[in-house]
């Protein structure tokens, strides 16, 4: 009775009990979606907040400026409001080469790659003695003698006054060399590239979170749906099989019960069903045997002629016996 007939699973047969399988699976899906949606929203909010904070912080990063050819501490000399002469202490060649351009313009030109080496006068620092005109530059500047100024004033209406040298500034740092400017440019480029890379990384992570979240949601729902249908099928499969035997029993057919397919669930339940099937088959066989006994007794005792009621009863016994035998015959065949 426990033979195994090899029925293979087929996708089209996966919904054996649609009402149970769909009800079960859709309920799980609805609840999972209901729980995942607010969680996803929260995740998205947290990710957006973290991303915004990170981006704001990246925006705060200040990359080092490109070094200027003009010394940082240097400033343009003030021109006395009374028209006092301002004496350029150091570079008398610069005005000759560049005309009367402001030092700032020179700096701009230098930044764009010029090789000139302008030096701008600076106001003296309070409390410090003014530097001498022929004082050696602090760091490696070439010492240059100031040419003696000679003027013929015979025809001039200008009164000759001993011009006092006014110190308007001093050089605190030497200007950056072209190599240093190049290095600072490279450093700035690297810094800016790093900022862009960081931004892209943070934004990329945010996009990744969104994509992973969407994929996770789809995977969870699909996983639940597929696994739900598959699991309920593994329950419905044996129940479908049991249902066929139940229908046969209902129609008074005591058929051979075959084993379940490999991988089916409810193996224990199926064993219970097989035992029950065997139990009712035994009951049927007992009834059949008792009916035979009764008919045999009626014949042996000659009861058929005793009364019409007895005759009817024997006929009924014979009808029932025939039914019972027909119902069990298939099992024995």
């Amino acid at each position, binding site marked *: 009775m426990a033979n195994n007939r090899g029925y293979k699973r087929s996708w089209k047969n996966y919904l054996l*009990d649609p009402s149970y399988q769909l009800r079960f699976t859709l*309920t799980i899906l609805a609840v999972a979606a209901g729980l995942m949606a607010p969680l996803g929203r929260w995740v998205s909010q947290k990710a957006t907040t973290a991303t915004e904070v990170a981006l704001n912080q990246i925006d705060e*990063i200040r990359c080092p400026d490109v070094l200027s050819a003009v010394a940082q501490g240097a400033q343009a000399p003030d021109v006395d409001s009374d028209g006092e002469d301002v004496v350029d202490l150091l570079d008398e060649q610069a005005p000759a080469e560049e005309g009367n351009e402001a030092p700032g313009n020179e700096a701009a030109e230098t930044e764009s790659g010029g090789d000139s080496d302008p030096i701008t006068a600076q106001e003296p620092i309070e409390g410090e003695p003014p530097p001498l005109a022929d004082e050696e530059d602090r760091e490696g500047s070439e010492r240059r003698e100031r040419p003696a100024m000679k003027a013929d004033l015979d025809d001039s209406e200008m009164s000759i006054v001993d011009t006092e040298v006014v110190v308007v500034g001093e050089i605190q740092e030497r200007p950056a060399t072209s190599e240093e400017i190049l290095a600072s440019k490279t450093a700035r480029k690297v810094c800016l590239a790093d900022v862009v890379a960081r931004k892209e990384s943070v934004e990329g992570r945010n996009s990744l979170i969104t994509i992973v979240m969407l994929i996770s949601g789809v995977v969870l729902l699909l996983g639940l749906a597929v696994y739900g249908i598959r699991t309920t099928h593994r329950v419905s499969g044996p129940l479908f099989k049991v249902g066929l035997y139940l229908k046969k029993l209902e*129609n008074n057919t005591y058929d051979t019960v075959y084993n379940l397919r490999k991988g089916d669930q409810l193996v224990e339940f199926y064993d*219970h069903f097989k035992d029950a099937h065997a139990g009712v088959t035994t*009951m049927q066989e007992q009834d059949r045997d008792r009916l035979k006994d009764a008919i045999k*007794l009626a014949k042996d*005792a000659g009861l058929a002629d005793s*009364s019409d009621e*007895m005759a009817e009863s024997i006929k009924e016994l014979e009808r029932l016996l025939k039914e019972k035998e027909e119902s069990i015959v298939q099992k024995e065949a």
Partner: protein
Amino acid sequence: MSKKKHNRKISNYLIDKKLQLRYVIFVTTLSALICGMLGFLIWQQADVATNIIREQLADAPDMADEVIRSLKSEDQNLIFTMVASGVGLIVLLSLLLVVMTHKVAGPLFKVTRYLDKMRDGRLDTVWPLRKGDMLQNFYLKFSAMHTSVKARHVETNETLKNFVALAEAAGIDASGDQGHRLDELRKHCEQRSEALA
């Protein structure tokens, strides 16, 4: 077929542990993996923001300690919230699955008890399922089979009892072989009546 009322009990929710826990474990593992992955990504994003702030605070060490402590605390809170949310989601899903699978395992358990009675040759009354139980179609099939089989045995038993009564009325000798066979039939009918009660 009147209805016997059985209330659900929490202790009885895991009727078929193998059937129920198999599905619960699958869903729990899947949810845990997804929650863990999402949580890790959010934590990573928050950690990036924290690290950038920390880098920028390197120039202000007096402020840095307090701010970093605050950021760490926020990050920990985020982790706790994420873990709590993930665990909450998994627990809720697991509970739901236990309830859902219980609605499958419940009817199966009930049918199993009837099947055990049938194995022992007893066909007593089949009561309907509880409201909300699944496998209603299957249970209806089982119930129809049970009713049909029982009806046939009842009919056979009634016919046999009628025959025994008629045979006794016909005056069969109770002490002889025929009387013994009639007695066997009577005993069978009594046993069957008991089994079909």
